[in-house]
């Protein structure tokens, strides 16, 4: 019983990433008929979250060529442009276990191997394959990759097992696989940033819960230190001398004046700027890498701006300026999709998208989806879904990512923390998020680590130094304070925020950038707003959605009018060119929630004619939907 999708939309959205979903919500919210489709059977695209099992399957899925996701098997006469390009893929993806697979029987087996293997660790190629064969004979669960690192890893596991018999096993973690929510692209929110303000003003915040990041750490002189985020932090910090404390307080409390009075050349780096202030190297480190999250090359005005952003978001929710969405960043896209659905948006995942048809004027006309040809006035698509011909140069820089599961916190304490660690590495800054079970993203007793940085070649190489400094693999590291890595994944994601997404694209087609390196969603939000306003120049972007309590089923006419009024900040008066149909659609938006139920009390409606009319219009809309439903069956 496959349903056909309705057709004849105002807006089709291909992809369910953050930018696409924000646009979807905004368009549905003003009454546009929106269809949002995805080739994946999950939400989020490169912004998705997975449990521990699904992320390991993703590895295989990624090897499937694009031809399957975007099949091109329609007849050649069809004049359509195939969808999909390599930006949809992960250029690199691997996952690896670093602990024993099962119970103590396996552990014994590994011990056995360990005895065989100890002397063999540094043998040449030939001996290694001998070892591998050896291992196969012993090991009936030999579905592991057989490269040297695995052998090496197992030997170390075995050593570790000897010392500590209740070490976790894969089996234990796999049992809890669903308790993991692993973000491909984890993001934080500045407590007073544009994104948080939008979540509140649009009332989308009701679909999500947040936790405040409880501490900011940084890597300095080979150690992890707490970055002071408040006066008490500053004074509690025994690594900072009294003089330095004064210097820091002075800088931070007078940053506005500093900016105005400073007389330095435009291209001075923030680092040099701070050095000129005669600040100590500790203070420079805190401000440069942690508070402003800059690198050695950031110019000073940008650095000042970022410092102010950090300071400006302090003191609203928690001890630090940051919030994290409970259950992971994937919740954010889903919240926007839910709002879109609540306002009539139609969603279909797991769709076969063949291509789009352009008309003679090179404008988008329809989308070939499965056997259907779905028309719409505009189409928005994720950058990875776009036809290759839409790019001048479809190459992008990369985001290097690592995800680790560890056995303890980077910095233990009695209470569980949610930690942001800023790790400067030359002209790059590596950001590390440590999530405990209170964030709803992993089970008790383990931590989920997200590492992100600008990619150069291979995420493993990009992050190796940092990972080795902070974490231990088996016993090779003698420092008992380091968290042990139980599982790891390395992957890279295209960073598309500097691609030209406009010049080769038809005028009613809009491309959405994927994830970027920013800590927050501000860039994505701005892109979404920009695209929305290009399509609907006079519409309001995500006005406040009514509360659930305001939408009462079986509305009586009085409250009906009330809700309408509270909702009437849709200013359509300016737009004189709008067609009657579009206007009706906009009116409907503020009525949707009433309209559905208005039927119940329709006959008793004794309201001013204006309400009556809009309600009727809305009802018409609902009837059309009902027809669509019949057609579907």
């Amino acid at each position: 019983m496959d349903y056909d999708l309705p057709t004849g939309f105002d807006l089709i959205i291909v992809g369910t990433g953050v930018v696409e979903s924000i646009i979807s919500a905004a368009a549905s919210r003003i009454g546009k008929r929106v269809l949002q489709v995805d080739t994946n059977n999950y939400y989020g695209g490169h912004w998705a979250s997975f449990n521990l099992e699904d992320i390991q399957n993703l590895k295989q899925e990624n090897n499937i060529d694009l031809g399957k996701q975007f099949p091109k098997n329609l007849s050649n006469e069809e004049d359509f442009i195939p969808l999909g390009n390599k930006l949809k893929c992960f250029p690199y993806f691997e996952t690896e276990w670093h602990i024993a697979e099962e119970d103590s029987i396996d552990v014994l087996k590994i011990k056995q191997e360990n005895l065989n293997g100890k002397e063999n660790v540094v043998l040449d190629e030939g001996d290694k394959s001998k070892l591998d064969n050896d291992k196969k004979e012993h090991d009936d669960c030999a579905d592991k990759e057989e490269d040297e690192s695995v052998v090496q890893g197992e030997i170390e596991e075995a050593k570790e097992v000897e010392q500590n018999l209740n070490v976790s096993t894969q089996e234990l973690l796999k049992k809890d696989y669903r308790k993991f929510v692993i973000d491909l692209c984890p993001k934080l929110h500045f407590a007073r940033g544009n994104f948080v303000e939008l979540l509140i003003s649009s009332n989308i915040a009701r679909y999500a819960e947040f936790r405040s990041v409880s501490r900011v750490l940084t890597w300095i002189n080979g150690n992890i230190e707490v970055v002071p985020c408040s006066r008490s932090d500053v004074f509690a910090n025994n690594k900072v001398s009294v003089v330095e404390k004064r210097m820091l307080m002075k800088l931070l409390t007078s940053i506005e004046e500093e900016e105005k009075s400073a007389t330095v050349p435009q291209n001075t780096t923030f680092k040099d700027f701070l050095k000129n202030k005669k600040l100590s190297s500790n203070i420079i480190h805190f401000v440069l890498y942690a508070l402003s999250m800059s690198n050695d090359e950031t110019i000073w005005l940008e650095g000042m701006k970022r410092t102010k952003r950090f300071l400006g978001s302090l003191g609203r929710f928690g001890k630090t300026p940051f919030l994290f969405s409970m259950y992971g960043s994937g919740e954010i896209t889903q919240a926007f999709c839910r709002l879109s659905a609540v306002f009539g948006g139609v969603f279909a995942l797991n769709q076969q998208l063949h291509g789009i048809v352009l008309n003679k004027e090179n404008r988008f006309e329809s989308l070939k989806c499965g056997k259907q040809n779905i028309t719409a006035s505009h189409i928005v698509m994720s950058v990875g879904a776009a036809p290759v011909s839409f790019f001048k140069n479809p190459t992008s820089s990369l985001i290097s990512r690592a995800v680790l599961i560890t056995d303890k916190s980077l910095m233990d304490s009695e209470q569980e923390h949610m930690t942001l660690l800023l790790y400067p590495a030359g002209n790059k800054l590596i950001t590390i998020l440590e999530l405990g079970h209170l964030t709803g993203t992993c089970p008790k007793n383990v931590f989920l680590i997200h590492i992100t940085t600008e990619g150069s070649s291979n995420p493993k190489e990009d992050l190796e130094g940092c990972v080795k400094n902070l974490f231990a693999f088996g016993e090779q590291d003698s420092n008992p304070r380091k968290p042990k890595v139980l599982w790891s994944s390395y992957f890279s994601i295209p960073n598309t925020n500097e691609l030209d997404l406009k010049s080769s694209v038809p005028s009613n087609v809009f491309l959405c950038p994927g994830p970027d390196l920013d800590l927050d969603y501000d860039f994505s939000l701005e892109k979404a707003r920009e695209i929305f306003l290009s399509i609907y120049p006079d519409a309001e972007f995500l006005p406040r959605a009514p509360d659930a309590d305001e939408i009462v089923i079986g509305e009586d006419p009085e409250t009906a009018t009330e809700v309408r009024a509270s909702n009437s900040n849709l200013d359509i008066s300016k737009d004189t060119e709008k067609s009657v149909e579009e206007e009706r659609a906009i009116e409907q938006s503020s009525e949707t929630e009433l309209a559905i139920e208005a039927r119940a009390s329709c006959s008793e409606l004794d309201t001013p004619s204006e309400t009556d009319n809009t309600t009727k219009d809305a009802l018409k809309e609902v009837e059309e939907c009902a027809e669509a439903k019949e057609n579907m069956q």
Partner: protein
Amino acid sequence: MDEDILTTLKILIIGESGVGKSSILLRFIDDSFDPDQTLTIGVDFKTKRLCVEGNNVKLAIWDTAGQERFRTLTPSYYRDAQGAILVFDVSNHSTFSKLETWLNELDTYSTKSNIVKMIVANKIDKEKREVSREEAMNFARRHQTLYIEASAKTRDGVQAAFEELVHKIIQTPGLWESYGSNVQLGNKDHEKEPSSCSFCGLV
């Protein structure tokens, strides 16, 4: 005003399109029924207070917003729900056969392992009946869910369905107590006094 509320419970209503999910909700919230109830769009969730054995609870009852039609409800829809009402239409056997899929769906996405499930056999007022009480009850027993027969049209069983569900939830230890300390944006109580904890208010 909310002080006497013991807790707020999130309840989902799921099931195939057209089985009467929205009608049950409408009956429960507003005690009304609309024979011409159409395809649901624009309904998010409804709240209602309920008093069960002297405990005041607030129910937030989530409708599917039409997202079930193409099987694209988001995992976050299921998130943190304490109870689920699985509706089928006794006059349409295929809606009953799909319950298995919906139970799987719940198992996959619900974040509370002990979520209380109730199967509601709806539209029992109809003469033509394709699913017998016995067949449905066996199914419910096998899947360890509550079971009730109801009609959104005649109001039979509707109130009782919600009351029993809430009763069971409250009896289930660890299911409804909240963790606290999460931030709900837009909730002023969750914001700090300005400057209590920042550099800015120092000088």
